[in-house]
C-alpha cells in the first residue's frame, strides 16, 4: 500500500503537507508521532474517510476509483472510537464483518475471532455494556472476520488499525499485537497508528515517524526510533535503550522474550 504526496486540510488548517509513505505486505507498519502530528488524519485519508489530494494505492490500484464493497474485500479498518447505536450483542457486531469479503460462508468464524482476541464466551453479551478495552477487542474481532485470510487470490489483504491497543491492559496489548503480527507474517499487510513506542519498537517492521504533518523519518525501528529523532518529534528529551536511574522500577516489554 502506498500513499503518494498526500495533502489534507481540516477547515482552513492544512494537516498533512505532502506525505508519502509505503507499507509492504508481510510487514507491520507503525505510524507514530506526537499528538496532532497528523497520523490519524493520514489514516483517514488512506481509508478514504476525508477528502485529500494525492494518491493512495492498494495492491497497485488507485483506492479512490474503487467501490466500497471491492475495497471491503481487500482491507478492513478498525476505528479509534466505536460507539454503536442500538443494543446489538457482541456476536451481532462481529457478524457485521462477515457479510462482506470472501469468508461470508463461515458461521464459526465470529467465534474463532472472539477467541483470538480473548473474548471467548462474550458472544451473547450486549456490546454497549462492555468496558472500553473489551469494546476495542470486539471491534478488532469484527475487523479480523472481514479479512480473515491474510491472502486472497494470491494478493495480500490489509488490516488498518487506529491505535488498536490504546484502551488495553498490558496483557491484552500483547495478545493483540501478537495477533496482528502473525497476520502480517502469514502474508497480510498491517498498518497501525501507535502511541506506545516500546510496543512499536518491539513489533513494527517499518516505522513512519511523523511531525507537524510531515514524515520526519521512516524505516526499520532500529533506524527511526533513535534518541535524536524522537527528541525532535516529541520536542522533549527521549533517551533510547537507557536503563532507569537506580531504584526506579521500569518495565521493558522488549524483555518479554528473554527468560525471567
Amino acid at each position: 500500500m502506498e500513499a503518494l504526496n498526500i495533502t489534507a486540510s481540516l477547515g482552513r488548517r492544512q494537516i498533512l503537507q505532502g506525505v508519502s509513505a509505503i507499507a509492504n505486505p508481510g510487514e507491520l507498519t507503525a505510524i507514530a508521532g506526537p499528538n496532532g502530528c497528523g497520523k490519524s488524519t493520514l489514516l483517514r485519508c488512506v481509508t478514504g474517510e476525508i477528502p485529500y489530494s494525492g494518491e493512495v494505492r492498494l495492491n497497485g490500484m488507485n483506492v479512490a476509483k474503487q467501490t466500497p464493497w471491492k475495497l471491503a474485500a481487500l482491507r478492513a479498518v478498525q476505528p479509534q472510537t466505536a460507539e454503536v447505536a442500538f443494543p446489538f450483542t457482541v456476536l451481532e457486531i462481529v457478524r457485521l464483518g462477515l457479510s462482506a469479503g470472501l469468508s461470508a460462508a463461515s458461521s464459526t468464524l465470529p467465534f474463532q475471532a472472539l477467541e483470538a482476541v480473548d473474548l471467548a464466551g462474550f458472544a451473547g453479551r450486549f456490546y454497549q455494556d462492555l468496558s472500553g478495552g473489551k469494546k476495542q477487542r470486539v471491534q478488532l474481532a469484527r475487523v479480523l472476520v472481514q479479512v480473515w485470510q491474510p491472502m486472497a487470490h494470491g494478493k495480500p489483504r490489509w488490516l488498518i488499525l487506529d491505535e488498536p491497543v490504546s484502551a488495553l491492559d498490558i496483557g491484552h496489548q500483547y495478545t493483540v499485537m501478537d495477533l496482528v503480527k502473525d497476520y502480517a507474517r502469514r502474508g497480510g499487510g498491517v498498518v497501525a497508528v501507535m502511541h506506545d513506542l516500546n510496543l512499536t519498537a518491539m513489533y513494527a517492521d517499518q516505522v513512519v515517524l511523523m511531525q507537524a504533518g510531515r514524515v520526519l523519518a521512516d524505516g526499520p525501528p532500529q533506524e527511526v526510533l533513535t534518541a535524536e529523532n524522537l527528541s525532535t518529534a516529541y520536542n522533549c528529551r527521549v533517551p533510547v535503550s537507557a536503563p532507569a536511574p537506580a531504584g526506579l522500577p521500569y518495565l521493558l516489554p522488549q524483555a518479554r522474550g528473554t527468560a525471567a
Partner: protein
Amino acid sequence: MTGAAHGFDRRARARRLTVLLALLLMVMSVASLGWGAAGTSVWGAVADLAAGRALSPLDRLVLFDIRLPRLFLCILVGAALAVSGALMQGLFRNPLADPGIVGVSAGASLAAITAIVLGGLLPATVLSFAGDYLVAIAAFLGGWASTLLLYRVATRGGQTSVATMLLAGIALTALAMALVGVLTYLADDRQLRDLTFWQMGSLAGATWPKVLAAAPIILTALAAAPLLARGLNGLALGEAAAGHIGIPVQRVKNMAILTVAAATGAAVAVSGGIGFVGIVVPHVLRLASGPDHHTLLPNAALLGASLLLAADMIARTVLAPAELPIGIVTAILGAPVFLWILLRRHGAMGM
C-alpha cells in the same frame, strides 16, 4: 459451534416472531371484519357464501364497501408508519427519530390544511380533477416536498449530516406549525371542523379508491425496505465504519430517505396524523428480538398493521355508534408505552 447452539442467536427468535406476528395479523384482520356497529357477522356471511346463498344487500355493503377497504387501509397505513419509523431510526442511529421529527408529517399536514382552507381558491378545473382527493393529494405532495427540501438543506457535497438534518427537521416542523396556526385563524367554522378532524387522524373515510391510491406507493416502499437492512445495520457502527465493511453509504441514505418520504406521505395522505406507531413498534421489537434490520423491518410491518387494527377497533367501539379519531387512540396507547420503555430500559437503548 453455532450461535443457535448457544441459545443466544436472536435471528432464530426473530424468525419465530415473524411467524407469530403473521398469525396475529390474520386473527386481527378477521376480528376487525366482524367488529362494528352494524350487526353483520363474518361467519354468517362465509356460511352464506359456502352454502351458495347470495349475501343480503346490507351484509354486502357493510363487508365489501365499508369494512374491507377499511381493513386494507388500516394494514397499509400501520405497516407504512411502523416501517418508516424503523428506517428513520436506523438512518439517524437514534431510536427516537421518526418521520414526525424530521418534518415529513409536518409538511404533509401543512399542505393538507392549506388545501382544506385555501383549496376553494384553486381554478375550477383543478378542483374538479382532484375532487374529494384534494386534501390527500396535497398531504402526499407536502410530505414529499418537505423531505426533499430537508435533504437539500442537510446534504453538503454528497454527505448527509444527521445532526443538521434533525435540527433542520425541528425548524421545518416549527415553521409548518406556525403556518398551520395562521391558516387556522383564516379558516371558517366548517373548515375548522374539517381540519381538526383531519389532524387527529381517521380511517373512517376508507374507500376502495383511497386504498388503490395508497397501495402501490406503500407496497413499493415496503418491498424496498428490506434491501436497506444490511446498510442500516452497518450504519449503526457509524458512517465511516459502514463504508469500510463495503456498504455504499450515500446510496443507502438516499434510498432510505426516499422510502420514508413515500411511505409516510402516502400514509398521512389517506389517514391524517396518526402518531406513535412509528416509534413504539420498532422499540418493542428491538426489545423482543434485537435491532437487526433484516428481521426488524418485516416484523415492524406486521406488528404496525396489527397495532393499527387494534387501535381502529377501539376507536370504533368506545363511543359507538360514533367514532373516536384513531390518532387519539394510538397516542393514548402509544405515549405511555413509549415513556415506560424509556424509564425501564434507558441503558439498553443506546442513547
